[in-house]
């Protein structure tokens, strides 16, 4: 396959993933509303929000880094997504998967937040650095169980290629990592709670404490970029988890069903718990999930 076809396919896949991520966001809002006992906003509300934020007539900037913040964030989401094979065996959704792409993806998950830190810091609002400090420190801590879990996978499958990991899980449902290495899955799913930033780990956006934290100064198109990224990034993370732990997907429908169910775990926890204090959240990740992650490595390496 020549590179242009590949790029063309990647563009299609990015657009579909973004639309899917945003729609997922709309569905989640609806589910939250139903838990609240409300009717809830329409599912397409996130799309209208993005159009509206783009349609603002004025955009206030605070300097060059302020432009770079959302761009870096979007690059983080895009980078995460582009190196994950979405559908096993599909040329359109293979993206740029290659040997060792798992490490690259893990880097990109971190990257967006760093870029955001630069941009939001330029905004000059005192709540932005507070939110960034919280976000980066929480990210460092939830990366620990996630990294341990990925190491366990690497030991188990002897590869860092996501396509190869998905390939190894094909055949039967019992080949999924969920059943071959349950400890790694538990550690990773807990760290996913932190990654998705629903309660109790919503300490970055915490509206009652630091009103939505880092993006507080982001307006108009800056915000629209961040919102678009949120759709893409959520989809990318869910697809990554589906690939690593739940056997991947062989067609679009399976992908949608699996990622939706994975996300529901985060959503239901989020609906039922209040928020941690930042230091509590960090302590939480460094305690049980980390221990479970270490157990998972021991489990695959020595048992």
């Amino acid at each position, binding site marked *: 396959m020549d590179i242009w076809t590949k790029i063309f396919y990647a563009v299609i896949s990015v657009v579909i993933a973004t639309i899917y991520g945003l729609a997922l966001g709309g569905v989640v809002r609806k589910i939250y509303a139903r838990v609240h006992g409300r009717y809830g906003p329409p599912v397409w*509300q996130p799309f209208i929000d993005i159009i509206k934020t783009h349609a603002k*007539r*004025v955009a206030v900037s605070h300097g060059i880094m302020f432009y770079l913040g959302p761009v870096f964030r979007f690059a983080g989401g895009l980078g995460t997504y582009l190196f994950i094979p979405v559908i096993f065996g599909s040329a359109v959704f293979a993206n740029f998967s290659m040997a060792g792409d798992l490490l690259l993806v893990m880097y990109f998950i971190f990257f967006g937040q760093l870029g955001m830190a630069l941009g939001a810091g330029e905004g000059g609002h005192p709540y932005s650095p507070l939110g960034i400090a919280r976000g980066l420190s929480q990210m460092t801590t939830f990366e620990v169980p996630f990294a341990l879990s990925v190491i366990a996978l690497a030991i188990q499958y002897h590869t860092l290629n996501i396509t190869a990991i998905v390939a190894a899980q094909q055949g039967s449902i019992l080949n999924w990592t969920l059943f071959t290495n349950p400890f790694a899955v538990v550690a990773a799913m807990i760290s996913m709670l932190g990654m998705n930033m629903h309660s109790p780990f919503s300490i970055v956006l915490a509206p009652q404490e630091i009103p939505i934290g880092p993006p507080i100064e982001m307006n108009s198109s800056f915000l629209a970029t961040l919102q678009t990224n949120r759709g893409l990034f959520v989809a990318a993370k869910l697809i990554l988890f589906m690939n690593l732990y739940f056997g991947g997907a062989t067609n679009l429908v399976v992908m949608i069903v699996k990622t939706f169910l994975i996300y529901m775990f985060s959503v239901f926890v989020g609906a039922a718990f209040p928020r941690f204090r930042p230091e509590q959240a960090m302590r939480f990740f460094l305690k049980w999930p980390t221990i479970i992650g270490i157990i998972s490595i021991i489990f695959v390496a020595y048992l």
Partner: protein
Amino acid sequence: MEKKDINEVEKQMNLANDGLSDKEKTLFSDARPQVVPPVHKIFENFRNWARAQSLWMLAFGTGCGAIELRPLMTSRYDMSRYGIAPRPSPRQSSVFIIGGYASLKTIKRIVRSYEQMQGPKFVIALGSCTINGGMYYDSYYTINRIDHYIPVDIYVTGCMPRPESLLAGFNKLKERIRAGRADGMNKYAENFDWYKKNQKRIIKDWNMPDYNW
């Protein structure tokens, strides 16, 4: 002809920012707000539709009207059906709900928050006290009519207005936006000096920039 030119020059001139110290003057913008004309009609209609369908209101309970916003957010009245959601930052919100009477101390923050909102921005004023002072018409600390300080799109009368009438107000606002008549942002920029004069007349210690970008 000459007179008009002077006005033109004056409009191009930067704001004085007299309330700030010399050190602070470097930190704030001194540009005047500009009138941003709408784009081509078809595009503008589409954008107006999106604006009307996604109203983010600023979470700033300026008065007792804020108490009826909570029932509005919850399951009985559920304003999220209409695409209305609270938003904590003025940078990102497009509707400002003046919840009743505005005291002198609050009007300063109202002006500041209003100017920080990115246009197009809309204002809904709740309660009789925003229209003519209501039952606080003789109070020394509450302003009597809000439309001399910021442009208002919709008034919702009553003390308190019921959530239903608030929803009706929101729907009227949507109609206005879709028709392209909710242009408070440009109105504010056009009559900037008049609004500023009124604001400075009551806010005696003006220690913020003349326009809070």
